[in-house]
């Protein structure tokens, strides 16, 4: 049962062109036209049953499609090489996806709720700020240190998380998120409410914050370098999470989420897998936070509030719980739309909250619901 690569590739190219157009659109009418076109494309895809074909073609050729997606992102970044703001948004979307992948691992796959996503993002960001200013650690390691610290500090919560369930677990992460933000605000060593400056990323002597000079006249945006970094991170995180999901570990996560008692009756070590999912997820969120901090050059407690945690959770729910692929449209909607549609900028929290309410009531699976595991012989993986 082989499936052609073309439907998935075509869908990918069409989406990439749409996203590129959206990122570069400046007039409000153009933005609105692109959104309407996207809606129409989704309607058509459903009307003519393209979705299933695209999904099957993508699943059968996942490696080719993955490579094609990376090539397309590089191409899009190249097209936008002189547009700072568009590139910044592209990077933000990719880094939010990294954080979303961490959250989806915890929330959607292992069922470990985490309402402190912004706090772990903030731990990564602050760790990057401290390590990059106070130590001579190479910056690639600084970013890993951000993830490592998020996982390390998260491990403080492991014991209460394992002892509690459901609402009680949610409370622990909410309490931690509030505690973390308050701590940052009153703590002088980490800059207090003013926050800290973060030096830009330097790799092998190249400072990412320097514009890339091609010749006398042309200068490319320095965000191009960060786009490369973000792409690297998101590709690695995506491949990692997808592989984990498809492996026996992912199966253990699913078992733990769906029924802890049954899982442990079948010999699945519930506690160990919860710890694993929580720590790996926090690591990814922390890495995203560290990279984001180095890109924007600045961290402050106000970026890591409970509201921001809810935005991260919205991305995961919007995409479809546990669905790694769904994070792409979800992160685009949540990050790019409010920046592009000035009319809704002010109302974005209100609109996202309403959007999530509608999704939970009408389409609890999200935009791209996670597909069921298919164990038939020869089934596409």
């Amino acid at each position, binding site marked *: 049962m082989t499936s052609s690569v073309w439907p998935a590739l075509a869908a990918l190219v069409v989406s990439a062109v749409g996203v590129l157009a959206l990122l570069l659109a400046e007039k409000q009418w153009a933005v609105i036209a692109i959104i309407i076109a996207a809606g129409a494309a989704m309607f058509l895809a459903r009307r003519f049953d393209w979705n299933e074909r695209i999904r099957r073609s993508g699943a059968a050729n996942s490696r080719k499609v993955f490579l094609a997606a990376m090539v397309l992102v590089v191409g899009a970044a190249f097209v936008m090489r002189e547009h700072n703001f568009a590139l910044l948004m592209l990077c933000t979307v990719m880094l939010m996806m990294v954080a979303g992948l961490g959250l989806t691992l915890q929330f959607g796959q292992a069922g470990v709720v985490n309402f402190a996503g912004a706090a772990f993002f903030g731990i990564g960001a602050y760790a990057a700020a401290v390590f990059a200013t106070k130590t001579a650690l190479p910056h690639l390691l600084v970013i890993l240190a951000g993830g490592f610290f998020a996982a390390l500090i998260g491990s403080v919560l492991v014991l209460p998380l394992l002892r*509690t369930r459901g609402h009680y677990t949610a409370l622990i992460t909410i309490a931690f998120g509030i*505690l973390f933000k308050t701590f940052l605000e*009153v703590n002088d060593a980490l800059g207090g409410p003013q926050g800290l400056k973060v030096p830009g990323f330097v790799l092998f002597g190249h400072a990412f914050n320097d514009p890339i000079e091609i010749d006398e006249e042309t200068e490319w945006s320095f965000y191009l370098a960060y786009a490369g970094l973000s792409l690297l991170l998101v590709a690695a995180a995506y491949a990692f999470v997808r592989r984990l999901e498809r492996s026996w570990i992912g199966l253990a996560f699913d078992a733990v989420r769906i029924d802890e008692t049954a899982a442990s009756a079948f010999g699945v070590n519930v506690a160990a897998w919860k710890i694993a999912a929580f720590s790996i997820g926090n690591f990814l969120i922390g890495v995203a936070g560290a990279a984001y901090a180095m890109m924007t050059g600045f961290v402050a407690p106000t970026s890591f509030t409970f509201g921001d945690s809810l935005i991260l959770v919205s991305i995961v729910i919007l995409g479809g719980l546990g669905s790694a692929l769904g994070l792409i449209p979800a992160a685009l909607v949540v990050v790019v739309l409010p920046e592009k549609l000035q009319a809704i900028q002010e109302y974005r*929290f209100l609109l996202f909250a309403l959007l999530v309410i509608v999704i939970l009531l009408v389409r609890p699976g999200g935009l791209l619901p996670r597909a069921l595991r298919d164990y038939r012989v020869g089934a596409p993986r």
Partner: protein
Amino acid sequence: MDPGLLAQHVFNGLMLGVIYALVAVGFTLFFGVLDVIKFSHGDVVMLGAFTALAVSVGLTGGGVTSSPLVLAAMLVAAIASMALVGALLARLLVLPLRRAPAINVLLITLMAGTVIREGVRLFYPQGSNPKPFPRLLPGGSSELGAFTLRHDSAILFAVGVLAIVGVHLVLTRTRLGLAIRAVAQDPETASAMGIPFTATVLATFAIGSALAALAGVVNGLYYSEISFNLGLLLGAIGFSAAVIGGLGNVYGAILGGFLFAALQTIGAVALPFASAYKDVFAFAVVIVVMAIRPAGLLAERSAERV
């Protein structure tokens, strides 16, 4: 420490405790009947305070000068409208998700809270700034050494305690209370005995939200200022209080409310770090308590059915 000063701290803590307990009782009531957490509760508190503020602005602008009259109108309007809002939220968001995973209900109400919060910020005139709340209670105070008892605080404290006692009486002495307790214990058997399930649930949400409105007004009168985001922290505190008491247990929620206030007060005055760390301390203790007693201090004894 000087006994007068100590008494001052104790009273301030008790005052906070009453507000927290009012909020926490709502959380625990909702959990009792539906096994859900309605996280928009803190924002309902805030909306209640803003409703009262709008009424007072309207009445004062309309030439009504008698403080008791204005205060009565504020209380009636806030309590009635929040009871309605609470019942509506239950009907539109919570009940439809009864069969969905519990976390979806938590999420949908978190988002409903965000809608309320953002709605006030965006659509109340200059809603993003803190608003002065009118001082409508008699302003005098009695001094006893270093202890100053503000009369308005004493009245607020008494009102809060009376409201909690009132809820206790409703739950234990009335047919409605019996229905609520029956539904909390076993919805199916309660329905079989002729207790209307939906009506009881809605009544419970109305009662809890009415308490939230009262908490909002008390909070506004105590601090003389309200802002659109007060519900977030108050909701988290009320939830924590209900959880450390043991969800579903009204007395646990009251105990939890006072405990949380005690933690904050201890964190602010008795511990060797800056008082700004009081919330860090209080929430850290909550996390530790949860690790030691995962189902709260006064937990219902129950075995999970598999």
